[in-house]
C-alpha cells in the first residue's frame, strides 16, 4: 500500500533500448512536494535531462503521468500529461489531454510511465491490470490513429474496455509538432510530444485495469463530491459549454477583436459566423461526449455527411477553428472540420499546424515563397483545398510539407529572405488562437509560458468577459477595476503569476482547467479539500500555493539551463509594434515590458535577466537548482 491514498502507488519504468518494463514504487517524498502530473514530470525531467539532451535522441525521457485526482469523482478529473524535452522548442515540453486513458492507467495500477531509450523496432505497450508486455508494432507502424485503434483492439482481444494512447504517422515521421493522441480524438498536442514518442519507436500504449483507487476519507468523500458536483453544474457557464463546446468562442473572440485572422493581420474575421459555434451546432453536431468524470462535456462529435470533406468524429475546439480557419483566412467550415479530423488521424497539433500554414500563406502572398517552392500549390489566404492538402503532406513530409513539418520558426530560418518577420511564434512554438493586443494578460501569459507560446500555462481568462466576483476572490478587490479590463496592462503581471501558480497545481493533481480557471468555480480551497479527502496528505492552502510556485520556478530553471532569459520572454514584432487595425482593440499593441517588469518583481526574478533569485529558489526548496544558475546570477560567497 502506498503511503497516500488517491495514488496507484507505482511508476512503470520502461527501457526501450533493452526492451524491459519494470514497475517501481512511487516516491512519496516527491509527490508530497510536486503532487503528480505536471509537477511530477518537472522534477523527474529536471534530474534526468539537460542542455545536452537531444530531443529526438534516445537520451530524451518521455513521461506520461496522471495526478492524484485523475480517475476520481472530482469534476473533470480525467487528465494526464505527456512531458519531455521538446523537439519544437528545444526547451521544457509538456502537453495535456483528457479522455478515459489516464483514469484507466490508474485503475491498471500505475500513476505514471517513464520511457527511456529507443527501441530497435516499432513496439507498443500492453498494460493489463498491472501486467506489462512490450509487443511488436510491426503491423501498426504506418497506420493512422483510427486504424491503429481498431487493429490494437483486435490484437489485445478486448472490445471497448481497453483504452488506447498512440501516435499517428506525423509522430512516426518526426513532425516537430506531432501530438500524442488517446481515445481516438483526444490530443496531448503541443510541443511535439508525438515526435518524441515516434523517435523512441513506441507506437501505442494500451491499458486495461480493474484496481481500486483508495480514498483517505471514505466517510465524507461522497458528500464532498456531491457538493462540488452541484456547485459545478449550477454555474451558468456549464450549460453553455455543454450546448456549444468551445467553438462558440469564435463569435465571442471576434466580438472583442481577438480572433487572429490572416496570420494576425487583424483580430476581426468577416466570416466568423460561418465557422462559429452556432453554425456547427446547428449543422454538424452529433452529440456532446464527455471525458472521464466530466460534467462540462465540452467534447463533442460532429459529422459532415457528404462531399469531399465527409467524416464522423471528434469536433474541433476553438483553437483549431481559429488556427486552421480564421488565421488562414478560411471560411469553408467543412474543410476546417475535415482538416481537424485528418490531424486527429495523423496525430498533429492543430495550433502549430495552422500557425505554420498561415505563415506560409503570408509569405506566398508577399512573394517570399514561390510556386516553384510550394510545388505549384497556390497558397493564398482562404484557399481551403491547399490547406487540407498540406495536412497530409506535412504528416508524411512530402514535398513542400517536409519544410513545414519543421514548424514555422525553423522553416523561416531555412528559407530566409525576410520570412522570419511573419513567424508568429514564441520560443519557436506557434501562438494558438490568441491575440495579446486584444487581451493584454494573454499577451503576457504567452510570453512567459514555460513551453513556448502557450495560452494555457497561465490561462488568464478572468479579464476576458468580466468575472469580477472571481477576480475579487482570487486577487483582491483593490486591484479592480484595472485588473478586470482586458485592454489595460495594469496588474496583469499579478494576474498571470497567480494564474500560472494555480494552473500548474491543477495540472499536477490531474483535473481540467475548465471548472478551475474558466468558469472559475473551484480555487485552491476546493481543490485542497478534494485533495486531502482523497489522498489524506493533510496539506494546507499555503503549502499548495507554494507547490504551484515551486513547479513554475522549476520549469523556469529547466529553461534557464537551456539559455532562456528575459530576451526570450517576448512576442512576435507584429504584436508589439503593429497596432491592431480594427474592432475594440483598435490602435492597441501589447505593452509587454511594463507587464514583464511587474511579473518578474512578483516572481522574485531578476528584472534584467529573468533569472530566478537564489533566495527565491531556496525558499521554495529548490536548492539543487542553484548550481545551474549562470555564474553572474549565483550568490557571491
Amino acid at each position, binding site marked *: 500500500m502506498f503511503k497516500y491514498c488517491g495514488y496507484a502507488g507505482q511508476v512503470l519504468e520502461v527501457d526501450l533500448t533493452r526492451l524491459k518494463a519494470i514497475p517501481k514504487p512511487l516516491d512519496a517524498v516527491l509527490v508530497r512536494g510536486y503532487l503528480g502530473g505536471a509537477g511530477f514530470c518537472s522534477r523527474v525531467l529536471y534530474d534526468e535531462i539537460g542542455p545536452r539532451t537531444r530531443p529526438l535522441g534516445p537520451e530524451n525521457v518521455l513521461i506520461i503521468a496522471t495526478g492524484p485526482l485523475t480517475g476520481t469523482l472530482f469534476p473533470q478529473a480525467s487528465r494526464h500529461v505527456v512531458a519531455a524535452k521538446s523537439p519544437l522548442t528545444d526547451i521544457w515540453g509538456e502537453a495535456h489531454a483528457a479522455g478515459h486513458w489516464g483514469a484507466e492507467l490508474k485503475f491498471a495500477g500505475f500513476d505514471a510511465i517513464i520511457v527511456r531509450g529507443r527501441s530497435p523496432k516499432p513496439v507498443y505497450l500492453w498494460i493489463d491490470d498491472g501486467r506489462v508486455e512490450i509487443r511488436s508494432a510491426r503491423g501498426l507502424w504506418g497506420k493512422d490513429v483510427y486504424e491503429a485503434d481498431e487493429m490494437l483492439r483486435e490484437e489485445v482481444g478486448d472490445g471497448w474496455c481497453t483504452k488506447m494512447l498512440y501516435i499517428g504517422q506525423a509522430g512516426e515521421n518526426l513532425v516537430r509538432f506531432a501530438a500524442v493522441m488517446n481515445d481516438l480524438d483526444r490530443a496531448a498536442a503541443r510541443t511535439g510530444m508525438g515526435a518524441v514518442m515516434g523517435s523512441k519507436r513506441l507506437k501505442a500504449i494500451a491499458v486495461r485495469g480493474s484496481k481500486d483507487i483508495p480514498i483517505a476519507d471514505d466517510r465524507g468523500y461522497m458528500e464532498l463530491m456531491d457538493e462540488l458536483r452541484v456547485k459545478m453544474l449550477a454555474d451558468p457557464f456549464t450549460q453553455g459549454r455543454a450546448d456549444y463546446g468551445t467553438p462558440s468562442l469564435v463569435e465571442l473572440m471576434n466580438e472583442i477583436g481577438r480572433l487572429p485572422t490572416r496570420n494576425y493581420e487583424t483580430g476581426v474575421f468577416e466570416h466568423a459566423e460561418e465557422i462559429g459555434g452556432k453554425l456547427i451546432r446547428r449543422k454538424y453536431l452529433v452529440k456532446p461526449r*464527455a471525458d472521464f468524470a466530466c460534467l462540462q462535456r465540452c467534447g463533442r462529435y460532429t459529422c459532415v455527411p457528404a462531399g469531399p470533406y465527409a467524416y464522423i468524429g471528434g469536433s474541433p475546439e476553438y483553437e483549431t477553428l481559429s488556427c486552421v480557419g480564421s488565421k488562414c483566412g478560411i471560411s469553408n467550415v467543412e474543410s476546417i472540420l475535415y482538416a481537424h479530423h485528418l490531424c486527429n488521424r495523423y496525430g498533429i497539433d492543430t495550433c502549430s499546424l495552422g500557425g505554420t500554414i498561415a505563415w506560409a500563406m503570408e509569405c506566398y502572398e508577399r512573394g517570399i515563397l514561390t510556386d516553384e517552392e510550394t510545388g505549384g500549390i497556390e497558397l493564398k489566404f482562404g484557399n481551403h483545398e491547399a490547406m487540407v492538402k498540406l495536412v497530409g503532406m506535412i504528416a508524411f513530409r512530402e514535398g513542400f510539407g517536409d519544410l513545414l513539418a519543421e514548424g514555422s520558426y525553423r522553416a523561416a530560418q531555412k528559407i530566409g529572405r525576410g520570412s522570419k518577420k511573419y513567424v508568429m511564434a514564441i520560443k519557436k512554438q506557434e501562438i494558438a488562437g490568441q491575440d495579446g493586443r486584444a487581451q493584454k494578460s494573454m499577451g503576457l501569459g504567452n510570453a512567459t509560458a514555460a513551453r513556448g507560446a502557450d495560452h494555457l500555462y497561465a490561462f488568464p481568462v478572468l479579464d476576458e468577459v468580466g468575472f469580477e466576483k472571481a477576480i475579487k476572490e482570487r486577487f483582491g478587490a483593490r486591484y479592480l477595476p484595472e485588473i478586470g479590463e482586458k485592454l489595460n496592462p495594469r496588474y496583469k503581471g499579478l494576474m498571470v503569476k497567480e494564474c500560472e501558480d494555480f494552473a500548474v497545481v491543477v495540472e499536477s493533481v490531474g483535473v481540467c482547467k475548465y471548472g478551475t480557471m474558466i468558469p472559475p468555480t473551484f480555487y485552491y480551497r476546493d481543490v485542497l479539500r478534494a485533495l486531502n479527502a482523497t489522498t489524506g496528505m493533510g496539506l494546507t492552502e499555503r503549502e499548495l500555493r507554494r507547490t504551484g510556485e515551486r513547479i513554475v520556478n522549476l520549469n523556469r530553471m529547466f529553461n534557464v539551463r537551456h539559455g532562456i532569459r528575459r530576451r526570450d520572454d517576448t512576442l512576435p514584432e507584429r504584436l508589439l509594434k503593429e497596432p491592431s487595425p480594427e474592432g475594440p482593440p483598435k490602435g492597441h499593441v501589447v505593452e509587454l515590458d511594463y507587464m514583464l517588469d511587474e511579473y518578474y518583481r512578483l516572481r522574485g526574478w531578476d528584472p534584467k535577466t529573468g533569472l530566478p533569485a537564489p533566495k527565491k529558489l531556496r525558499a521554495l526548496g529548490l536548492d539543487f537548482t542553484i548550481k545551474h544558475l549562470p555564474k553572474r546570477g549565483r550568490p557571491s560567497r
Partner: protein
Amino acid sequence: MPYLYGDPIKCTGCRICELYCALFHERALNPKKARLRVVRAEPAIDKPVACHQCADPPCAKVCPADAITRSIKLDLVTVDLTKCMGCGACVEACPFGAIWLHLESKKAIKCDLCKVCVPRCPTGALSVATSEKIADQKRLDLVNRWKPVMLECVQTPR
C-alpha cells in the same frame, strides 16, 4: 416493473454513475465494481446498461443454486449471496450483459435499484422507468415527429 433506464441520446459517457455506484456499494473508486456499465462504442454511442428486473428472469431460471429470485414485495430481481456459488450461469443467460461476477468475491452482482446514480447524472440520462412510461414517451416522440404532417390534415383555426 421499474428498472434503471439509461437514455443513449442524453448519455455523454462520462461514467460518473459507475464511480458513484462502486463508491456506494464498495466504498472504492473502481468502475469495474459498479452494478451498471456505460458502453462507449464508436462512433458516438454511449449507453448505460443495467438490470431490466425482468418479469420472468432468465438468470433466475438457469441458476442451479436458486440464488436469484424475483421478489414480489420489492418488485425486484434479487441475488441471495449466501446461496450464489459463482458459476456464472446467470451471466450467460442474461441477454443484456447486466449481471456479472464480482472481481474479488466472484459472486453475481447486478443493479439493486438503489438509485444513487440517478440524481447524480449530469445530463439526466438515468431514470427509474417502467415499460409503460417508456412506451408512453415513445408514442409521444412519434406523434411529435409527425406533428407537422398531421397538422396539415386537420382544420386549425386561422
